[in-house]
């Protein structure tokens, strides 16, 4: 069985994101970049399924300029077998990404596409669902548990107010949520090994896919700032009094 894991290079979650003064986006120069945390969970899950003997081969895909090779390598160090780098200089949207991934899934006869449920930069939470639609495959989003048995997969999904379980038939698209697993740290030998793994390059424009962005970003601004006006209190009584009488909250 073949798995595809899509990974996105994003600003590391520990970095304080700063909006550029000219409103064209956020500051990315000299900022630490990492694999999107949800995608790291996706690659970890694929590797675990491979260790159980269910998946035979894991393709790691990323789209972007040359820097995404580093992101692909970090997923290969966790245990992906080979990489696919789709070269594009455009800032793609979920629909465009899903179209490219759909092409790659067909081309490589993928059985399970594992994607993070959302990227922590644009926060769209769309790509997996769109990929499933374009391939006309079943989808299981926000997975917190995955059990594969022959051509069926039982997926527990994190939904508002509880958990839901679906039974889907392979091929399938699964998007991963936080509780699915805790990704391992790549060991030094595995990081070294990953450097030798093959990364195939594809040029996005050669795919004959309409992946151009549809939305126009007029500007990016800072959210309304809060804080700087903290009222420091000296006792529990004072706090309760404020919350009761001044704010009327409790």
């Amino acid at each position, binding site marked *: 069985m073949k798995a595809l894991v899509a990974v996105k290079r994003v600003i590391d979650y520990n970095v304080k994101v700063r*909006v550029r003064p000219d409103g064209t986006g956020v500051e990315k120069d000299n900022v630490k970049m990492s694999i999107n945390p949800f995608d790291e969970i996706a690659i970890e899950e694929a590797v675990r399924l491979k260790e159980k003997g269910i998946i035979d081969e894991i393709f790691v895909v990323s789209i972007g300029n040359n820097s995404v090779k580093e992101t692909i390598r970090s997923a290969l160090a966790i245990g992906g077998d080979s990489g696919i780098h789709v070269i594009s200089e455009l800032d793609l949207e979920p629909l465009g990404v899903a179209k490219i991934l759909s092409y790659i899934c067909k081309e490589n006869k993928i059985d399970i596409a594992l994607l993070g449920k959302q990227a922590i930069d644009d926060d769209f939470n769309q790509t997996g669902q769109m990929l499933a639609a374009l391939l006309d495959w079943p989808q299981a989003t926000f997975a917190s548990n995955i059990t594969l048995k022959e051509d069926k997969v039982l997926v527990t999904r994190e939904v508002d107010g509880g958990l839901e379980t679906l039974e889907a038939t392979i091929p399938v698209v699964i998007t991963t949520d936080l509780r699915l697993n805790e990704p391992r740290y790549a060991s030094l030998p595995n990081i070294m090994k990953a450097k030798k793994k093959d990364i195939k390059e594809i040029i996005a424009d050669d795919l004959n896919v309409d992946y151009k962005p549809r939305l126009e970003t007029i500007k990016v601004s800072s959210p309304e700032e809060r804080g700087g006006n903290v009222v420091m209190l000296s006792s529990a009584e004072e706090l309760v009094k404020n919350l009761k009488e001044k704010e009327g909250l409790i």
Partner: protein
Amino acid sequence: MSCLVILELENGAPTRPSLATITASRKLSEDVDVLIVDGDSKSAVEKSTNAKNIYYLNENSENLIAEQMVELLRELSNKFDYILAPSGTFSKNFMPRLAAVLDKQMISDVTKIHDENTFDRPIYAGNAVATVQSKEKIKLITIRGTAFDPYQGQNGNSKFICLEKPKEMKKNKFISKEETKNERPDLSSARIIISGGRGIGSTENFKIIEGLADKLGAAVGASRAAVDAGYISNDYQVGQTGKVVAPELYIAIGISGAIQHLAGMKDSKVIVAINKDEEAPIFQVADYGLVGDLFTTIPEITKLI
């Protein structure tokens, strides 16, 4: 302009985020149609939304999967300029799938409507706001429920239109749903959240937080540091990689205020920080601060309420 709002119901009435979505929809279109999957709630929905047309299913169905929702909406969508739904795991599941079927780029989590084509949406977990413009002929949008006031309906005069429940899918089926057996409210909809951080020190000590939460009818949350330390499971995690929340009152206890945590709670209306370190960054976003030992302060507060 024509607009369809897909509503979520709870106890036979639209949820607060659903009513917020109605408010948002009226900024785009005078006439608003709604779709519900529970026909028994038709008249409650008529009163609270003043919808022109109410689409409902001939058979009540709670657990439609994304593929079925897309079957239901595929044809119907072409009648509308806008398709809106309150942002939540239900809409996040089917709306992008529908958008791709219609070959449209969807806009998630809209917090502000500038005009018929221009919308604000938070990015980087709310650390930045993108203003985006869409020229798509059908605009699929999910609405952040905390960003709009709930619509106040008066006696409606809706037309009811019955739709056939979509068939079961061959390749994917609903098996079961396990509602969280939690007497406390859900993090994403709670009015008050009490969160604990690494300062709590142990799983056992989280009971102090829970005691206060129960007294206030609040949800319990945690910082990533507390989750990573193993004090509490990560479904309680508030932050950029956990849940993004915006309650009326957020009380952060023993939380230093890492960027990752602030990103998940800074839109709360009133923030209270209780920490023994007066230099903790959490005080910079708080409205009220209390420097002190949480093991004496929290029981005191609990007693006073």
